C-alpha cells in the first residue's frame, strides 16, 4: 500500500483534488432531486477522499 502511494502519490493527490471539487456539485444535484440515498453514497466517497487527503495530502 505504502509503495503504491509512493509510486502514484502525485497522481492520487491530483485525483483527490479533482474529486474534492467535483463531488460537492454531484452532492448538490442529488440533494436538489431529493435522492437521499445518492447523497449518502456520494458523502461516503467524499469521506474516503478526505481520509486520503488527511493521510497523504
Amino acid at each position, binding site marked *: 500500500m505504502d509503495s503504491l502511494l509512493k509510486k502514484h502519490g*502525485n497522481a492520487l493527490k491530483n485525483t483527490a483534488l479533482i474529486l*474534492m*471539487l467535483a463531488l460537492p*456539485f454531484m*452532492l448538490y444535484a442529488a*440533494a436538489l432531486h431529493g435522492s437521499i440515498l445518492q447523497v449518502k453514497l*456520494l*458523502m461516503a466517497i467524499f469521506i474516503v477522499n*478526505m*481520509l486520503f487527503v488527511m493521510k497523504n495530502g
Partner: protein
Amino acid sequence: MTDLFFVKWILALSPILTVLVLMIFRNWSGSRAGAAGWFVALITATFAFGAHPVLIAHSQAKGALLSLNVLYIIWAALLLYNVVNETGAIKAIGIGIQRFSGDKSIQILIFGWIFASFLQGVAGYGVPIAVVAPLLVGLGFSPVVAVAVPAIGHSWSVTFGSMGASFQALMAVSGLGAPYLAPWSATLLGITTFLCGICAVHVYGGWKMVKHSALAILVIGMAMAGTQYILAVSGMWTLGGFGASLVGLCSGLVVAKLKIYNQVPPSQTQSEMGLGWALSAYFILVVIVSSGVMVPPVEAFLGQINLTLVFPEIISMKGWVTQAGKGKAINIFGHGGALLLYATIIGFLVYRSRGFYQSHALKTIVQKTIKSGVPTSLGIVSMVCFAMIMDHCQMITVLAEGISRVFGSIYPLVSPWIGLLGAFMTGSNTNSNVVFGVLQQETAQLAGLSAGLILAAQTTGGALGSMIAPAKILVGCSTVGLSGKEGPVLKATLQYGLIITGVVGVITMLFSFIR
C-alpha cells in the same frame, strides 16, 4: 457565559482547534490538517448542531464554488510566475536592482521590503522568501537575517498580493463587496507598510540603521501605501500589491541615488536579460488588468458568462435557517484569474519569440505549477468546506456570540490577533480569511461595530501572520541551508509580528471610536 453555552462554544471551536494543534504541535501540512478539521466539523455539526445529509451537501457545493473563485487566481498566478521564472527573469530583476546601490540598508529595503513584496504581488505562497533569502545571502547577509528580512518585509502586501487572492476570499466568505471592504483594508495595510519596512531594517542593523534609512522608508512607504490604497479603492484590487510594489521599486531606485545612500559603490554584475525584458510579462499584466477593470466595454464584454448555483433555504435539525440564494458567481472570462491567464499566454509567446526558453520549457512550467498548486489547493478546499459546514450549522454564530460576550466593545483590539492566528496555523492569509472571515463579521455585527473595519483588521492580521507562519519560514530556510534550524528565524520574526499586530489592534480600536 452559562455552562451549556460554554460547552457549545468549545464544540463549535473544536474544528479550528484541531487545525491549530495539528499544524503547530504535530507539524501537519495545511491540507492534512484542513482535512482533519473537516472531519471534526462534520462530526460536531452532525451530533451537536443538527446537521443532516442535505445540509452538508449544499454547504459543500457552496464551499466548492467559493474555492473555485480563489483557486482560479492562485493557479493563474502560479502559472504566470513559472512562465516568467523559467526564462531567468526573476534572477535578472534581482541583479538589475542590485546595480543601483551598495548601501546595506538600501539593499535590505529594496530586496527584503520592495522586491519581496513585488514577488508577493505576482506569486505569493512562500515565493518571496524563497527567492529573496538566497539573494541576500549572496550579498553577504547571515542566513537568519536573509530569511527573516523578506518574511517581515513582504507581509504588508499579502492581502492585495497574489492578484488579490486573499482579498477575493474575504469578499467571497463575507458576501461584502470591494467598495465596502477595500478602504479600511488598504488603510490598515498601508500603516503596516511603514512598520514592516522599519522592522525589516531593524532585524539587521537595529535602531541606528532605522535612523539612517528613515528617509527612504518614509518616501518609499508613502509611495507604496498610497498606490495600494488608490488601486484598491478604484476597483483594481487585483493589482494592489503588485502595482504598489512596482511604484515602490521605482521610488526605491530613485531614493538609492541620494547622496546619503551612495557612500558605497554598487555591484557591477550584468545579467543576460535586460530589466525591461525581464519585467515585460508584468507590463502586459498591468495593461490587461487595467483594461479588464477600468474600460467598461471590455469589462462588459468579458463579464457575459457567469456560473453560479441557486441554493434553497436550508434548516438544520436544531432549527438554524440558512436563507435561500445564489452561491458565489464565477465570471469565467472577466475573473481576476482569467485576466492573469491572458497575460500569462501573451507573456509566454513574447518570451518564446525572443528565444528566452530552453527546449521543453513548457513541460517544466506546467509540472512546477502543478507541483506547487495541488497541495495549496487541497488545503484551501478542505478549509473552505469545513468553514461552510460550520456556517450552515450556527457554529460560527455561536463562536462569534461567545467572543462578543467576553470582549464586547474592546473587540477591535482582538480582531487582528484572530487573523494572525489563522495565518499562523494555516500558513495563508487566504485560509485565515476563509476560516475566520464570517466569524469576525458576525462578531462585529453582534458588538455593533463596523464589519468593514473588523474584516480589514482580520485580513491585516492574516497578512502579518505570513511572517510567523511555520510553513513559509520552512520554505525560506530550505533555500539558505537552514533546514532543521528554523527556530532562530521564527524567534526573530515572532517578536516583530506580535509588536506590529498589537499596534494594528490599537489603531483598529481608535478607528472604531471615530468611524
